[in-house]
């Protein structure tokens, strides 16, 4: 598929970089002229994905988070967030709303629910011990009432 633009970055899995990832999404999206809601949705999506990598993938241990943003035809945004952390043993279970492995940290277990709601497609590929890759797409300019 034709890629109109692409931005790749990686950064250490520390929570201060969650804001950095949101800023990257904002900067990448600006030329596509998203609505305020589209921008807010995709900033939320990247925040959830990167937080998952830091909290669950690396469990606060050292490692890098890899982000790829692409602008595809028909104003479709592609977001890929990958880590080389522990992986998810049961992806179906992890995607259930309110399921969390970190309740003691006040994690709501809503990350996947939010990512699914705010994107058109979400694919998860995870191998225990190897890491997790999330790939999401959202087409801009659709009227989307949630």
């Amino acid at each position, binding site marked *: 598929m034709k890629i109109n633009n692409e931005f790749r970055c990686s950064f250490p899995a520390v929570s201060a970089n969650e804001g950095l990832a949101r800023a990257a999404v904002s900067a990448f999206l600006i030329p596509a002229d998203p609505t305020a809601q589209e921008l807010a949705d995709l900033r939320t999506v990247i*925040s*959830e994905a990167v937080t998952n990598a830091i909290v669950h993938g690396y469990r606060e241990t050292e490692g890098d988070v890899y982000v790829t943003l692409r602008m595809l035809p028909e104003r479709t945004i592609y977001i890929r967030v990958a880590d080389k952390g522990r992986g998810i043993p049961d992806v179906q279970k992890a995607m259930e709303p309110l399921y969390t492995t970190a309740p003691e940290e006040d994690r*709501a277990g809503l990350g996947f*629910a*939010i990512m699914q709601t705010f994107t058109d497609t979400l694919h998860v590929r995870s191998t225990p011990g190897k890491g997790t890759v999330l790939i999401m797409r959202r087409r801009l300019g659709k009227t989307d009432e949630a």
Partner: protein
Amino acid sequence: MQIHYNTETGQLLVQLDGEIDHHSSNALRAEVDAAIYAHLPQRLILDFRNVSFMDSSGIGLIMGRYKILQPLGSEIILQNPAPHISRILRLAGMERLAKIRSEVQKEAVK
């Protein structure tokens, strides 16, 4: 963030600001909980007027405070969320745990 406790009404008003994410929520939680345990308020008001971003970490923050306050019979009010924050509150079903309201711009109750 500003925290103000009104002894007459038993209201703890927390004026949140900036971005609420996993990074900021630990410090936020510690400050809010310190005030909750110091005052055991009848009502906790979280004001989102100056919050520019919130993800599910904010939902975790609200749910955690609900767990502390519910046994005390105290209520939580979430006020003045921006539209994108309202969406996340609704998606998470927070209206079942808390009142969500918007205040017309007026002098903050001090």
